[in-house]
């Protein structure tokens, strides 16, 4: 009765928060001690931030990089969505990155940026991120801040619980968000059919440690629930991965009601070391599933899309000991593992409480076969046998937890719109602070790993609702994020800043770990692009039927060649353009009037290709799009396009250097 009242009043307070905006928006209030907060986030002109923070763009499909503590936007990295600014997904070199078995897809929903790990610590080499809609995982190489690899995940309907690497990036993981007939087939949509035909998979992907070889190691076929979030074990729990599920009810419609009926759903605990043994023993089924592996080679500066076929599938009823279910109250969303690996924290998103399971107790319950039931070969462990404690938060709608490495968990509460700090010793709440508004994920740099940086100095809240936080900008608003100082006993709000797309999740790393390994430009002598031109003497034009290849160079402040004749209507013209600059931050761009594509933006020492199919005769200007120099406006040229059957010869020139085919 008392708890019902507590929940009811919290709901009431939460709704006040959301709908009245607490009456303080637009006045910069919310921060305690504005001047000292300002000092803590002030990064003087020319000075650097102390952290890189990588935000997913959610439905923007990209990753944005902000500096902390200033919140300044440093870069947008295109990942799953085409990006006209950089030409990603438009130029010939990067189009293969977005190939799937469904064809070329220009978009996805990018959710969880996760840094690569060595011994459970972020090593600063790579950032991985999942594509939620058409299941994929991408790699961003942190020397280049570019997407260099994407692998598609077959036998999955939606990829949310991903990529959450294991302690040494042995595996990246993924789980089916929306169970589907697996393998796919045409079945009716009703509950009987759902229960009979729909399945989920847990996917383990190898090749994360080094670029170029990501592949599906194996998949585990599991009952058709919705699998929601994941974390891989660490320290004592290294060798296990955990996935939350909801819709154990197996509803196929109006899930907001029908998937919320049971008191408990499950966290699936997967013993992947055991799974490896079964793979070695050959106890898998070989399915002819198809998927794409796309890799951008920094040497050839070109991506290739490779269609692969065949995955190894393990079925729990045939492989005892690989999956167990941990009953967890109220549709758990986040599952988080503390820095020691001892505690598995489930956030029952429809409740007030967090459920903390003990890894040790879990092993003991498995040993004692303390099972409540067995579902499709998966034992359900007894709740009381594995339960370490419950955090009675006083909030509502817990989602995600990260850790400061000083014995505290910090949990986001979506409904009550707050961050709650609690003790890992006694599971008591020690502090709480509002978030503006309806926080989803939160991020403590290193707070999901074994070593939170600087003992957990900052926490970032990523919010789903913005309302009145900033100057209004029409119906669509940027999502808001808040930065808190969590180094003291009380959390302090320092900064509030808008973000790109939906900042679904973010991870941060101490700037010193990666800033000195940044590539400043591509070395011309290492350029292995098949269509490079390493100096102006190598520039030329080749005709091959109606395909015309222009090998062009750019250097301040001209293209070579810059006058081109002999192109005909119906030709497919490839501009292969090499930027001859060998200095940091001197990109040149190329845009052609009427070309049905984006510009290309070519970094020093790089070669990129723009394809143009002229539709009508005439003279077409092209120009450099990146303000490169004092004579940037003069960096331009012309292409003459003649009728289809004309006999104008291919001719190219720069100043008084004239060539003809």
């Amino acid at each position: 009765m008392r708890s019902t009242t507590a929940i009811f009043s919290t709901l009431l307070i939460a709704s006040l928060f959301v709908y009245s905006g607490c009456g303080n928006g637009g006045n910069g209030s919310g921060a305690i001690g504005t001047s000292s907060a300002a000092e803590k986030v002030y990064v003087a002109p020319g000075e650097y931030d102390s952290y890189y923070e990588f935000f997913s763009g959610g439905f923007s499909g990209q990753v944005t990089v902000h500096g902390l503590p200033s919140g300044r936007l440093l870069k947008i990295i295109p990942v799953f969505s085409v990006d006209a600014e950089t030409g990603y997904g438009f130029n010939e070199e990067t189009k293969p990155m977005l190939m799937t078995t469904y064809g070329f897809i220009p978009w996805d929903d990018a959710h969880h940026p996760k840094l690569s790990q060595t011994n459970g610590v972020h090593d600063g080499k790579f950032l991985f991120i999942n594509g939620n809609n058409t299941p994929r995982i991408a790699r961003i190489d942190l020397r280049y801040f570019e997407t260099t690899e994407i692998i598609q995940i077959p036998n999955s309907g939606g990829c949310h619980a991903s990529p959450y690497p294991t302690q040494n990036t042995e595996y990246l993981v993924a789980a089916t968000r929306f169970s589907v007939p697996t393998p796919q087939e045409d079945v009716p949509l009703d509950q009987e059919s759902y229960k009979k035909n729909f399945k989920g998979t847990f996917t383990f992907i190898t090749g994360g440690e080094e670029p170029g070889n990501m592949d599906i190691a194996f998949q585990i076929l599991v009952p058709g629930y919705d699998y929601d979030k994941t974390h891989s074990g660490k320290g004592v729990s290294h060798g296990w991965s955990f996935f939350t599920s909801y819709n154990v009810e197996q509803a196929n419609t109006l899930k907001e009601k029908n998937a919320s009926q049971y008191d408990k759903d499950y966290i699936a605990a997967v013993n992947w070391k055991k799974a490896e043994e079964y793979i070695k023993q050959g106890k898998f089924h070989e399915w002819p599933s198809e998927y794409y592996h796309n890799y951008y080679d920094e040497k050839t500066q070109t991506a290739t899309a490779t269609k692969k076929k065949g995955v190894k599938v393990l079925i729990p009823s045939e492989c005892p000991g690989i999956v167990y279910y941990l009953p967890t109250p109220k549709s758990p969303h986040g599952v988080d593992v503390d820095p020691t690996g001892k505690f598995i924290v489930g956030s029952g998103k429809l409740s007030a409480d967090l459920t903390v399971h003990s890894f040790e107790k879990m092993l003991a319950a498995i040993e004692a076969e303390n099972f409540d039931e067995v579902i499709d070969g998966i034992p359900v462990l007894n709740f009381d046998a594995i339960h370490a404690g419950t955090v009675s938060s006083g909030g509502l709608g817990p989602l995600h937890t990260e850790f400061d490495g000083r014995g505290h968990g910090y949990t986001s509460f979506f409904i009550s719109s707050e961050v709650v700090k609690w003790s890992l010793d006694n599971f008591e709440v020690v502090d709480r602070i509002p978030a503006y508004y309806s926080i989803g994920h939160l991020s403590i740099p290193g707070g999901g790993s074994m070593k939170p940086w600087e003992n957990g100095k900052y926490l970032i809240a990523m919010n789903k609702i913005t309302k009145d936080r900033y100057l209004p900008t029409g119906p669509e608003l940027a999502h808001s994020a808040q930065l808190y100082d969590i180094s003291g006993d009380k959390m302090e709000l320092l900064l509030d800043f808008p973000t790109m797309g939906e900042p679904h999740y973010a991870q941060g790393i101490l700037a010193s770990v990666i800033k000195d390994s940044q590539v400043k430009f591509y070395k011309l002598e290492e350029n292995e692009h098949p269509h490079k031109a390493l100096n102006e003497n190598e520039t030329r034009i080749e005709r091959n039927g109606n395909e015309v290849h222009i090998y062009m160079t750019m250097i301040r402040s001209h293209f070579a060649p810059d006058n081109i004749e002999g192109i005909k209507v119906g030709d497919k013209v490839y501009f292969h353009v090499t930027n001859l600059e060998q200095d940091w931050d001197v990109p040149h761009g190329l845009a052609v009037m009427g070309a049905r594509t984006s510009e290309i933006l070519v970094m020093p020492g790089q070669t990129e290709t723009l394809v143009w199919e002229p539709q009508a005769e005439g003279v077409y200007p092209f120009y450099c799009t990146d303000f490169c120099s004092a004579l940037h406006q003069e960096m331009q040229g012309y292409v003459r396009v003649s009728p289809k059957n004309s006999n104008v010869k291919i001719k190219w020139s720069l100043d008084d250097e004239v060539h003809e085919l």
Partner: protein
Amino acid sequence: MKHLPKIIFLLAALSLLGMFIAPIWRISLLAPQYPQQLTMYIWINQITGDEAGTLQNINILNHYVGMKEINPDSIPELVYFPKIILGMAALGLVFALINNKKFWIAWVVILSILGILGIYDFYLWLYDYGHNLSPEAAIKVPGMAYQPPLIGTKMLLNFKASSWPHWGSAFIVTAMLGAAYAVYLKGKLKKQV
């Protein structure tokens, strides 16, 4: 003791070879867009930059004001200066063996004249690069020349150009002073005898 002047003269002559292990002059260009400076090193036998692309970057900037491209392959001094230095070192070796004060004085004088000629030649190159501008240059500032100082610092449009001797020069100075000291010591020893 008797052999000391000869040994010093020999070492002085050999120290000329040090000019091959370090640049003799350093010219750097500082502008707001180039906070790390563009630095060019002039060696006895080559021209380098602090990065592989430095020379190209300097040439790109220079071409806007019509300066000639700095192309080490077209500078004959980079070929015959090393020969002269090697010749002087060899000559010094022979003179040390001859062990004659007059020869030594002659060597110091020749080296000094060569040194002065070298600096003058360097000045002429700087003058030529700075003044001999293409009439078709994109940026023409009336009355402006782009000759960097021989020694010191000077503003050239947006660039602060600094030019200073570098470690390689220390070897020719060491050679001259060392040889002169050997001459002095030889004279002093003779008086004592």
